[in-house]
């Protein structure tokens, strides 16, 4: 579960990126977060990941009070979720397999389990045949799927994706969201930021709209309208 209680974020330079946000996302939900550029969507995600701390208010994610996490609690918290970044954040010197296995290695998973788990996830995102490829040998869409595979590999309860379709063409975008949809069906909560309204319209899901730092709309069935 995710809960924002009266959360505000003012950056050091005085920008009020979020203002008094109240938000609740239940386990197993699939939520789109939309809004104009500069609305505060990425800021919301950064607060969720504890990349930034709120200026005021409380944030609860997966049972952790994120705004009060101690330094040594952060790794444990981050292991409970999977993140897909807009800029992929893959390691260029590693191949596809290692980029995904990496997320398991850092959490002390045994080599035996890694060998079982990684090929499974790679086949899930359709990259089984590219396991030995380097990042510069992949297309943007393929790289995006590697990033997704890495987010999924440790079986998180929550997937957070900041514009995962930002750099790829509409057809591939649909595939990525469809994949997230499938993952959501087995019980994983998905929070996805996007500004592609066409894409959102294709899925019948809850949509939270942010404008100028505030939640201005929260439609349970946006796709139906």
């Amino acid at each position, binding site marked *: 579960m995710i809960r924002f209680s009266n959360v505000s974020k003012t950056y050091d330079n005085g920008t009020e990126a979020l203002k008094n946000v109240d938000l609740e996302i239940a386990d197993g939900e699939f939520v789109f977060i939309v809004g104009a550029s500069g609305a505060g969507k990425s800021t919301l995600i950064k607060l969720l990941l504890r990349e930034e701390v709120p200026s005021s208010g409380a944030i609860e994610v997966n049972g952790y009070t994120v705004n009060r996490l101690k330094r040594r609690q952060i790794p444990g918290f981050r292991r409970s979720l999977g993140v897909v*970044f807009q800029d992929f954040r893959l390691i260029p010197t590693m191949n596809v397999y290692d980029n995904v296995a990496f997320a398991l290695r850092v959490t002390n998973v045994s080599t035996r389990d890694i060998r079982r788990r990684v090929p499974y996830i790679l086949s899930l995102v359709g990259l089984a045949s590219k396991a030995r490829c380097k990042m510069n040998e992949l297309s943007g869409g393929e790289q995006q799927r590697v990033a997704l595979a890495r987010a999924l590999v440790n079986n998180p309860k929550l997937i957070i994706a900041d514009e995962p379709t930002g750099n790829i063409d509409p057809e591939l975008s649909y595939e990525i969201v469809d994949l997230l949809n499938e993952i959501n069906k087995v019980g994983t909560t998905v929070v996805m930021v996007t500004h592609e309204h066409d894409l959102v319209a294709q899925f019948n899901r809850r949509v939270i709209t942010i404008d100028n730092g505030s939640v201005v709309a929260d439609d349970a069935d946006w796709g139906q309208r």
Partner: protein
Amino acid sequence: MKGSSFTYLLKEGARNIWVNRMMSLASVGILVSCMLLIGSAILLSINLNGMVSYVENQNEMVAFLEDTADDNVVASVEAALAQNSNVDSFAFVSREEALERYSEVVPESLLESLQEDKEEVFPLSFRITLKDLSQIKETTARIESIPGVMRVNAPTNVAETVTGIKRAVYICGSGIVVILLAVTLIIIANTIKVTVFNRRKEINIMKFVGATDLFIRMPFVVEGILLGVISACAAYLLLWGGYTYLMDYVQTQAAGTLSAFLKNLVPFSQVARQLLASFLVGGVAIGVFGSMIFVRKHLKV
């Protein structure tokens, strides 16, 4: 920590070195150069010191006994010398020996002019070498105060010069080594800083997949250790080869008085172990602490 993650860390450290091989090569190159400079400075001052000590050992003082001295007095002076902590060695010189030594340096004709009992002219004496020439004055005074000793002939001037040279070598030597160490630290710190900076994205990614700070640091530390060890061994072998070659060359070329000096060159084997040990300790310490400090900066997400 599980076995699997230990092997992972080792592999990861080695992989990092290979992936960033140009940077690794640069680091090793810089470390080796610095170690060679420092090693050479140390070897040079050790050898200069050795040569000065050689000169030092050539200088001895002579304590003449009073004419009335008998066997008892000789024995008591001997005992007093043995108790003096700055006396390195001493040897009794009988009248016959004194004459013998004297005749070596003085023309025959001059000897003839002496009376019948030539030996009687020469007093009994002790030849004494000191441990620390810088204390020659104090030691001379103490030996002169031993009952039965008439006078002490000491090369005070030479002693002062030698002590001065020794001090200069020591100060210059340590000064140069300290400066080199400082320069090395600055260069290495910057190299590590650049290495870590080049990989800040990787560190950032690790943070977001939930790696602990320790886990992120370990491959860098392993890398630091490996590079430190490689550099230390390379520097050691180069210094060994270079020094041995140079010593052979110098000793075969030198002739006359100089060769006596150069016989006293310190053989590499005498300093080898300490040198290798300090290279290893220095290299590994720089690698480990450097990466610890500079990785930290990027761990704050």
